């Protein structure tokens, strides 16, 4: 009988033991190799964004993150990853962002990159994030990493209290639900309290250690691979770097790729997304504004995370295709006002490195399609990145941030007359 029972339950017991070891034993499964990091740098795989091990390994090598959203997948020859490869930049871009990621997702992402401390980063801001309702709950929940969430909860005793309170509150408002103990901990943080010893013990030793093992084991296997796409893009560039020549080439290639419409929108995007429906957009954005949005508060959370890590950040304000702006009837003042507001938030706290591509002299072919930078837009950014990427370490002089919790308030989110009204 004993043997019979062992034949029935033995395999199950062995399997459970193996699972426990895999998830909770203090073994570091080293699966992140330099090749993996290289692949991850342009992979844009959600697991890379939601994980920690690959990005922290990259921070130890010669990578500087570019944090953004959907524009990062516009991999034409002038995309920073392509340029960095062709012209042998000393440091390479590590892309972090997908269609649908906005400030709050990136705040969690930056918070999880412990090795970013004292290094540099690039952050691309999209005006389209700053809508009246802010980030959609579904999009945020999709990109929310349970691993980064546990990290945030455990770090809540040290970081800036106003920021922790804000993030916890915002996550609960967006309907985050990752288990009863995590939820209770978030609730305490949102009330400005310390998490309990039990919550710390559980989240640290059970939840987080298992998630870390999972990240180590599965975070970088069979990722999306864009290396061929980048190689192909880079191969179209001339051997010698000359801004004027490249500018001409960008114009020429972009014109060729947007031949079937007169709005400088890439053919494939136009055919797939617009052709049959374009009339719907005629004058559809006449009342769009980007100056009243909870996204300003979420964005402030990102700034806190950067400040906490003493990261030197180059902020990029993404351009919009001017022909598209005209077609949709969006008033140019929408962009200008957004610009003024976001720059005020940045500069008044000491984030002074801002590349503003929303107002340039010649905006032809600055975007790849409607609202995503590409071609000449990438090239203009590359021009700034070239110098920034020479050195990976932050210059301590440029990280003297003066954080102000006023930017976490509703008042700021809806303020338009800000310069002297504080």
């Amino acid at each position, binding site marked *: *009988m004993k043997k019979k*029972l062992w*034949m*029935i339950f033995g395999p199950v017991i062995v399997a459970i033991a193996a699972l426990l070891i895999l998830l909770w034993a203090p073994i570091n499964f080293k699966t992140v190799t330099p090749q993996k990091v290289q692949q991850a740098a342009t992979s844009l795989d959600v697991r890379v964004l939601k994980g920690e091990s690959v990005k922290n390994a990259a921070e130890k090598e010669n990578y500087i993150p570019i944090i953004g959203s959907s524009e990062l997948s516009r991999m034409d020859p002038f995309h920073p990853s392509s340029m960095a490869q062709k012209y042998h930049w000393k440091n390479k871009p590590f892309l972090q962002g997908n269609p649908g990621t906005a400030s709050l997702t990136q705040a969690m992402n930056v918070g999880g990159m412990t090795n970013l401390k004292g290094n540099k980063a690039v952050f691309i801001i999209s005006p389209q994030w700053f809508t009246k309702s802010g980030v959609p709950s579904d999009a945020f929940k999709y990109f929310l990493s349970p691993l980064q969430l546990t990290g945030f909860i455990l770090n809540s005793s040290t970081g800036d209290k106003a920021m922790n309170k804000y993030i916890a509150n915002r996550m609960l408002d967006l309907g985050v639900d990752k288990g009863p103990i995590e939820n209770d901990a978030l609730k305490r943080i949102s009330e400005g309290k310390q998490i309990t010893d039990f919550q710390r013990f559980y989240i640290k030793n059970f939840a987080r250690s298992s998630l870390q093992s999972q990240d180590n084991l599965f975070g970088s296997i069979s990722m999306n691979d864009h290396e061929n796409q980048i190689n192909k893009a880079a191969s179209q560039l001339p051997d010698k770097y000359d801004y004027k020549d490249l500018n001409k080439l960008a114009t020429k290639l972009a014109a060729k790729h947007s031949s079937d419409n007169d709005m400088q929108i890439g053919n494939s995007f136009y055919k*797939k997304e617009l052709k*049959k429906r374009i009339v719907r957009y005629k004058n559809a954005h006449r009342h769009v504004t980007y100056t009243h949005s909870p996204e300003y508060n979420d964005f402030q959370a990102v700034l806190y995370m950067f400040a906490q890590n003493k990261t030197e950040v180059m902020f990029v304000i993404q351009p919009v295709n001017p022909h598209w702006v005209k077609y949709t009837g969006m008033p140019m003042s929408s962009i200008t006002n957004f610009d003024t507001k976001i720059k005020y938030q940045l500069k008044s706290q000491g984030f002074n490195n801002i590349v503003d591509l929303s107002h340039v002299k010649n905006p032809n072919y600055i975007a790849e399609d409607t609202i995503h930078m590409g071609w000449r837009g990438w090239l203009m950014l590359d021009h700034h990145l070239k110098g920034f990427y020479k050195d990976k370490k932050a210059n301590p002089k440029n990280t003297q941030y003066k954080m102000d919790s006023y930017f976490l308030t509703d008042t700021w989110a809806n303020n338009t007359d800000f310069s002297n009204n504080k």
Partner: protein
Amino acid sequence: MANITPYSSPHYFIYLLLLLLPIIIGLWFGKRFRAYDFFATVVILITAFFGGNMTQGISLLCYVLYEMLLVFIFLSYRKKHNNFWVFTMFVLLAIVPLVFVKLDPLLKNQTISLFGFMGISYLTFKSVEIIMEIRDGVIKKITPYEFGRFLLFFPTITSGPIDRFKRFQKDVDKVPSRDEYVELLHSGVNKLMKGLLYKFIIGYFFGTLLLPKVQILAMSYRYQAPLGLSWWVLAYMYVYSMYLFFDFAGYSLFAVAISNFMGIKTPMNFDAPFKAKNIKDFWNRWHKTLSFWFRDFIYMRLMFTIIKHKWIKNRVTIANVGYVALFLIMGFWHGETWYYIVYGIFHAIAMITNDAWLRYKKKHRESIPSNKFTHAFAVFLTFNIVCFSFLIFSGFLNTLWFS
């Protein structure tokens, strides 16, 4: 706290097995603790139906009382009389709550479904079975306790398999011998593990990882060809079919496994359905307890009635009318949308065509080859026809064309 859908997450099993432990130990020593069984049922019902605002739980209780009332009134009536129309009325009364629940989505103000709770269909199948078998004289006596225990048997409460009262009664009234129980444990562990593989690994891969991607791709090509067709729609068809099978078969394996731990041999729901050599064979392998229920309580009875009253003479026509009725009812049961109805009609046509082909084959036996290759082709063809029917069933065409 919100309702916990049985078997929906791996964690559920840890709590469930802890709850089952006293039952397992009892059966090991040849005992059934009725009081504990009752307690365990209450715990499961509370977690599954009384979370949040308790509406589901209250509906469930009202529903069970209502059906119980019907069954016992009919039972006492049947002891003296046997009128066809009275019987029909009781069957109709028994399915009224389900009809309301199914009609609800059609109405703007959802108010008529007093009995909206997870698993109402499966409880209705069981109640109707009891009423029909009381009429047949197969069930002569049943106590309220037995009725409640059968209806609320928690391993199968939300989605089957649909057991039969007499069969269930045979298992639950006795305690298996030690050897029998060890066999049941063996079968239970195997099915549980296979279910975990099906639902949480393979089903997860197809349903959670692959399906959304394929759907986005299929939707992104919808303006490029007539009817929005692209290769991605075909991919969606196969991915959805795999998801549907592994998710549901996994769930059914859990229900059978947990039943086995409790000493009950709940019938299996799936028997390698994609190995079916024709559509009839498929329905003998796919969601078996449902198709057998429809066969025994709708199709056969309809056949019998038509023959008895000589409404139709031609045997082939009788069978075909039966198929159309059966699958239309199944379509309406799934929900009042065009794609469930079309799904039903599609299967009726497939069954009729299949019968016609089998008759033709029988007549021309010597001239039609039958070998390994024709068998492989039959399996391949059946698989694709079934997957196409699941594409209709999925409702994706509705999204593709009308959203």
